[in-house]
C-alpha cells in the first residue's frame, strides 16, 4: 500500500509542523484584531514584543519574574514535601484518615482569596505570610492526590519486600516511591498550575515586588502592553520548566514500561 504509506508520512511531517502553525495562527488573529480595533487597550504583537525587550533590558522584568519564581519554588517545595508525607500517612492509616478527612474537605473548599487575606491579617504583610498562604492553598490538593497513591500500593510487593527483609530506606526507594511517582507527578503538574495563579494574587494584595505587584501597577496605569509582555514571559518560563525538568523526570521514571 504505497499510497497509504505516502499519506501517513506526509501526515507525520504535517503533525510536527502543526504546533508551530497553530501558534502563528494565534499571533495572526491577534494582529488582525489589534489592527482593526486600533486601540491602546489591545496593542499589536509587535508593540508587546518591543515592550518586553525594553523590560528585559532594563532588568525590571527579570527582577520581578525572579522574585515570583523564588516564591513559587519555596512554596511549591514546602507544599510538595509536607503534602506527600501527610498523604502517605493518611493513605496507609484508616483511623487518621477518618479523623482528618473533614479537615481536608474544608480546606479544599476555602477560596484561595480568603486564605490569602487571613494570612496577611494574622501575620502581617510579610514574606512568610505570602508563602504560607500559597502553601495552605496547595497542600490539600497534594495530600488528596498522594493519598490515592498510598491507598493503591501493591500489597503483594510490600509483602515480598517484608519477607526478604528490606530496610525502611530500601522499601521506600525501591518499592513505595516508584508506585507513588505517577501520583506525585500529577500533584506536581496540577500544583504548578494552581500555585502560579495564586501567587500573583498573593503578590498583588500584599507584596511590593513580583509579577502580581507589577500587574497591579500596570492595571492602574492601563498599560496593557506591559501586562501582556509579562504574561507571555511568565508562560514561557513555566513551559521551559515543563520541558527541561518535568518531562525528563517523567521519562526516566517510565523507562521500564513496555
Amino acid at each position: 500500500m504505497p499510497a497509504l504509506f505516502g499519506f501517513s508520512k506526509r501526515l507525520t511531517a504535517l503533525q510536527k509542523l502543526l504546533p508551530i502553525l497553530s501558534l502563528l495562527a494565534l499571533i495572526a488573529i491577534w494582529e488582525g484584531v489589534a489592527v482593526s480595533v486600533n486601540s491602546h487597550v489591545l496593542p499589536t504583537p509587535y508593540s508587546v514584543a518591543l515592550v518586553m525587550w525594553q523590560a528585559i533590558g532594563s532588568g525590571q522584568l527579570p527582577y520581578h519574574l525572579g522574585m515570583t519564581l523564588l516564591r513559587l519554588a519555596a512554596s511549591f517545595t514546602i507544599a510538595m514535601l509536607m503534602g506527600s508525607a501527610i498523604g502517605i500517612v493518611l493513605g496507609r492509616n484508616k483511623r487518621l484518615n477518618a479523623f482528618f478527612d473533614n479537615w481536608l474537605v474544608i480546606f479544599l473548599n476555602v477560596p484561595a482569596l480568603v486564605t490569602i487575606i487571613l494570612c496577611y491579617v494574622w501575620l502581617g504583610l510579610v514574606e512568610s505570610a505570602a508563602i504560607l498562604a500559597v502553601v495552605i492553598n496547595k497542600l490539600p490538593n497534594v495530600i488528596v492526590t498522594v493519598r490515592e497513591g498510598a491507598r493503591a500500593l501493591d500489597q503483594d510487593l510490600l509483602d515480598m519486600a517484608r519477607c526478604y527483609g528490606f530496610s525502611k530506606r530500601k522499601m521506600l526507594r525501591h518499592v513505595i516511591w516508584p508506585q507513588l511517582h505517577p501520583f506525585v507527578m500529577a500533584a506536581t503538574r496540577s500544583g504548578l498550575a494552581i500555585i502560579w495563579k495564586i501567587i500573583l494574587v498573593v503578590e498583588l494584595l500584599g507584596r511590593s515586588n513580583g509579577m502580581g505587584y507589577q500587574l497591579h501597577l500596570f492595571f492602574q496605569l492601563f498599560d496593557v502592553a506591559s501586562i501582556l509582555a509579562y504574561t507571555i514571559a511568565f508562560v514561557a518560563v513555566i513551559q521551559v520548566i515543563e520541558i527541561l525538568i518535568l518531562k525528563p523526570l517523567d521519562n526516566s521514571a517510565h523507562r521500564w514500561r513496555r
Partner: protein
Amino acid sequence: MAAMKIRINCKTYPAAGRSFAKPAIADFSLTLKAGEFVCLVGPSGCGKTTLLNILAGLDKNYDGEIVAGHSTHPKIGYVFQNPRLLPWRTVRENIELVLDKQTPASMIDDLLEAMQLTGVQQVYPERLSLGMSRRVAIIRAFAVNPDVLLMDEPFVSLDAPTARQVRELLMQLWQQRPHSVLFVTHDLREAIALADKLVFLSASPMRVVREISVPVARSERNNETAIEAFRQRLKAGYPDINSLL
C-alpha cells in the same frame, strides 16, 4: 537436624458479619528436616498459602510456634504464586535488591546461568514471559541462601512443556545447592517428581492427613512412567488421599 518445626494450634480469619470465625488451620504439626524437599499436597483453598505466609513471617496472627534450627528469625526465600518482581527494576536489580552489598557478583552470574537467564539480566520484568519471570523469582529465593525455601505453586498456569522445563531447572539448581524446601502444589505428578516426602493436607480446617516418603530415585524423576507407576500405587495403597486431590 530439623530445619523447621511447625506447630500451629489454631489460625482463624476474622468472621464476616455475625457468622462464627471458622478455623483455617487447626492442630497442624510438621517437621522439616535439613535439606529435605517436602511437597504439600491438598485441595485448593485449604489454607496452604496461609501456612506459607505464617512461616514467612507475613502473618503473625495465629496460635502456635515455629522453631527454625537455632534461630528464631529464620532466613526465608519465598517464591510466590505470582512472581512479584519489581517492574521498575531490571531482572538483575531485582535479584541484587534482596542481597547484601558484599555479595559477590559472580554468585548472581552463576544463578542466572543455571536458570538460563544470562541474556535477559538487564531486561525489565514486563518484557519477560511468565515462565522466565518465575525463574527470576526462583533465583531471587535461592540467592538469599535461605534456611527454608517456600514455594507456592510456582508452576501453576504455565503450559506443560514450560512447567516441565522450569521444574527440571529447579531440580538441577536444588541438587547443586541443597536447601530445605516446602513446596505447595495440588498436582500429584509434580509433587512426586520433586519431593523427598509428600504431605497430604485436608480441606479447611487444614491439618496433616498423611506423610509419605517418595522412594523413586532422583535419576528416575524425569521418567514419566516411573512417576505414574508410583502415583497409581499411592492411590491404591492410600484410598483416603483420593478425596484430597
